């Protein structure tokens, strides 16, 4: 069943076509990775799909249980509600997403309160449980995130995103800028949580290894266009498009 669908998206930044006639769809519980190099338009696509920026033309549709309908037609308030409750967004830099002057527990609790939780004890207990889920010592509940390492901050952002049990999570280079050993831990965590919670995920990454590990399907982008799509193993093991072949052959084997 289709959860999200994009039709004929176009978006220009000055002379640059960041999105040039992009269409795709995402099913419930499906994990789709959007891969491509810097400037391919993949982050713009994620921002348009998640309603953070408007396309010049084209439509993003979402199914909140009553069939697909355009997100643009919902109005600002309902779109914000959708983003806060049914959706989550994991950014590359957790410092952009978290409030560093608020405790770890507060960062998690804030999202719960936005989605309606009121009981202080429950919120605190849920926050502690989520710290544990993302492998942060619950004793750090009252610590400020600025005392956390980069990997811990990213795990805190993941906890703060997933605590409201969204059905769709957008992820923009969630392991970018982290050490390789830290990346592996985050990836393993994300992989486990996504399956357990039955999330649909749209993941932007330039790292083919990340895509291989997490995604059911791949969308390969170049110069604002989708050049190839397919099951992850099909695209990576039998790339058809010239650009995908270059992308795959440019990776150093582990």
């Amino acid at each position, binding site marked *: 069943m289709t959860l999200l669908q994009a039709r004929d998206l176009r978006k220009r930044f000055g002379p640059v076509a960041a999105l040039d006639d992009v269409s795709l769809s995402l*099913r419930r519980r*499906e994990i789709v990775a959007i891969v491509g190099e810097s400037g391919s338009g993949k982050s713009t696509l994620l921002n348009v799909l998640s309603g953070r920026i408007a396309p010049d033309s084209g439509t993003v549709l979402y199914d909140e249980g009553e069939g697909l309908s355009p997100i643009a037609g919902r109005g600002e308030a309902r779109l914000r509600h959708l983003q806060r409750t049914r959706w989550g967004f994991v950014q590359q830099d957790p410092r952009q997403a978290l409030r560093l002057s608020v405790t770890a527990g507060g960062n998690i609790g804030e999202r719960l309160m936005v989605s309606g939780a009121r009981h202080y004890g429950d919120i605190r207990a849920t926050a502690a449980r989520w710290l544990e889920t993302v492998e942060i010592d619950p004793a750090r509940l009252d610590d400020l995130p600025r005392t956390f390492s980069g990997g811990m901050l990213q795990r805190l952002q993941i906890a703060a995103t997933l605590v409201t049990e969204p059905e769709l999570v957008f992820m923009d280079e969630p392991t970018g800028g982290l050490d390789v050993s830290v990346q*592996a*831990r985050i*990836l*393993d965590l994300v*992989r486990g949580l996504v399956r357990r919670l039955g999330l649909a995920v749209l993941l932007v990454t330039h790292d083919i290894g990340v895509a291989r*590990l997490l995604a*059911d*399907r791949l969308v390969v982008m170049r110069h604002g266009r989708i050049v190839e799509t*397919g*099951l992850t*193993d*099909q695209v990576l*093991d*039998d790339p*058809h*498009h*010239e650009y995908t*072949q*270059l992308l795959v*052959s440019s990776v150093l084997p582990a």
Partner: protein
Amino acid sequence: MIVLDAAGLEKTFVLHLQNGTRLPVLRGAGLTLRAGRCVALTGPSGAGKSTLLRALYGNYRVSAGSIRVRHRGAMIDMADAPPERVIEIRRETLGYVSQFLRAMPRLAARDVVAAPLLDRGAAAEAAAARARAMLDRLGIPTPLHALPPVTFSGGEQQRVNLARAFACEWPILLLDEPTASLDAANRDIVIGLMREAKARGAALLGIFHDRHVRDAVADETLSLEPLKESA
């Protein structure tokens, strides 16, 4: 009962980075698999045996032909099925095993083996018990069960991979050199597993360079020849 029926398969690799060189590998390839029977693919290196196996699994996309697989009681054409259906067929019906394990960081050997069972909806305890039994059977020492196979030797990784493949009772199992580089004792264990799979009605298609293995499990052979170069 026919469980897989492939016909007219075409596969040509186009190497854009090598001036668009075309490598035709399959032309009009096809085969039929029946429940409880094993077909061995033979032919010289470069004849397209692994390519055919991967094409049947949907890993390599064919440009023509049909791959009809008995799935949930109906024959479904994999070559023409949407991605979610291919994933479903791979989860429930069609298994594939090569000699190489794609190791996941931090995932313990027992969890690697249990994963496909859990994907099919098995209870955690049942999957864990089955994983333990399969790892024992393939001679992976108990202390290693809790460790990620990334650090294991090549032979141990291969046996973890085989434990994973045989933990599920696949109706159809594709095997690419499953016993390559195993010692005689482990090879015989894998022969035993393949025979048991056949006995419960699984259809097997394999590439077995080891003649002993082929003679022990195969009911028929299908010989592939390399295609002549064409433009």
